[in-house]
């Protein structure tokens, strides 16, 4: 019984982190039709910046906020300098469709390699800002600690805040219109280029939050070749696809579903099946329900 409950807790917590990454991927996809593989690199860089702020200010929360600001800045820079130039240069021709995606892969490698040069390959560590010791109920320790509660709350808070931003504000309307139909948005007076950069910036902040929250909840270790960040990208991507790649709520549901499935496989079957399960889930969703679990049939347009 406790094992079952703990598995659910583990699934929800890891799912919340995948969700944050999925939100970041969905934001960039929605505003520019690019699958941003560099998101893992951007999150890693932001987390390193967050680590530096922790050393300076001795406050995880301040550092989390500043890392998200830095992540937003990195996202905005990547789009306005790198992606915008790329779109201009390869607007037509045989590789126009894949060039941006390959470019984000290249950028991912570049960020990681540069970080490796800058900080060396030794680990640093981020300590949990609140206890990561599980709550105890009648002698049983749960796999749910104050830190995990913070992580889940942060993911839910970000999802709600971003959903409100998207659906209730003028900025959100600009973001949606630019994603669905850049030409009509332009004709209506929306500065589509700036709006896209804003989409990248918000994604950068969400990715930074994922990195900053993930690190202390795992081993606490942070290194430029961190496997955790590669997994974050892969699982975040799978979560986004499960959610339909278009929807923020879908991204969160996809993340939690993936987290739960993987947690149950890990607990009740075998740790070596986790990866296979994740990719099998991805393939099943693509084959059976390519529009994602919450199904916006007409939402998926190239």
């Amino acid at each position, binding site marked *: 019984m406790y094992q079952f409950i703990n598995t659910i807790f583990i699934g929800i917590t890891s799912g919340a982190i995948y969700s944050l990454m999925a939100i970041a991927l969905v934001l960039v996809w929605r505003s520019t039709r690019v699958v941003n593989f560099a998101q893992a690199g951007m999150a890693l860089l932001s987390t390193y910046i967050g680590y530096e702020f922790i050393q300076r200010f001795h406050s995880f929360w301040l550092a989390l906020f500043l890392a998200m600001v830095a992540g937003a800045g990195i996202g905005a820079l990547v789009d306005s300098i790198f992606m915008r130039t790329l779109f201009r240069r390869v607007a037509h021709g045989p590789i126009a469709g894949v060039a941006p995606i390959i470019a984000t892969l290249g950028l991912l490698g570049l960020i990681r390699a540069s970080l490796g040069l800058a900080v060396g390959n030794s680990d640093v560590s981020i300590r949990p800002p609140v206890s990561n010791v599980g709550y105890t109920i009648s002698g049983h320790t749960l796999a749910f600690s104050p830190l995990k509660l913070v992580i889940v709350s942060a993911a839910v808070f970000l999802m709600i805040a971003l959903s409100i931003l998207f659906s209730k504000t003028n900025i959100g*309307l600009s973001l949606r219109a630019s994603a*669905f139909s850049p030409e009509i948005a332009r004709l209506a*007076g929306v500065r589509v280029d700036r709006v896209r950069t804003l989409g990248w910036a918000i994604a950068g902040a969400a990715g930074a939050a994922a990195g900053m929250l993930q690190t202390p909840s795992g081993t606490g270790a942070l290194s430029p070749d961190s496997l955790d960040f590669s997994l974050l990208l892969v699982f975040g991507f799978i979560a986004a696809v499960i959610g339909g790649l278009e929807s923020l709520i879908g991204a969160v549901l996809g993340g939690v579903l993936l987290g739960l499935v993987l947690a149950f496989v890990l607990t009740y079957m075998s740790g070596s099946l986790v990866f296979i399960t994740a990719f099998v889930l991805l393939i099943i969703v693509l084959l059976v329900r390519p529009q994602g679990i919450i199904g916006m049939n007409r939402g998926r347009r190239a």
Partner: protein
Amino acid sequence: MSLEVREVSVHHGPIRAINKISFDVQAGELVAMIGSNGAGKTSLLRALSGLNRSAEGSARWNGFELLHTKPEILVRHGVSHVSEGKSVIPELTVEDNLNLGALWRRDQSQAHRTRQSLLDHFPRLAERMKQSADTLSGGERQMLAICRAMMSQPELLLLDEPSLGLAPLIVAQIFETIRDLTTTMGLTVILVEQNAMSALKVADQGIVLNLGSIAAIGSAQSLIADPKVRAAYLGY
């Protein structure tokens, strides 16, 4: 207040769609631009609205150069364009499609008043504010697209084939609406149309394009009366 078009050329690669066209439009006029498929009507309109920025020549609205200016900037200078075909965003609600046209405006209370007066004119849209634009009929979509452009409070409105794919009765309604807006709002309108007769009937002036050049220009009545224009474009 006028639009001065001088020696405008538009190329699509090696193909010349518009060849050194010049004409004037006086403020407050409704100008029908007609011509057969491939005459260059849409090419000219896309050059005027900044969607095609490779055009040569000059087109000034009240002295402001339109060519090579981005559409989102043109909107801020009183020039709005309703493009051909998909002119609303089907994924958004009617309300969002409308509001989109006024997002850039600093004075949102002014935008609110504009919206209210448009909705008074178009009660069918008012009833459907929360529906997705996808659910509208073809005619309603076109009305919505025009209203979205009106939300930007344009002085010069460029309309590309608003009659496309619509039943004759609806086309007549839309053209009446355009006529009405031109007169009551003091708009200047360039209406690009295949549907030559219906367009000329509501227009003040007419321009006939053929193979990228002006084949005839003059008052709408004189064009309707012109035997050559009748034979070539009005079908009788």
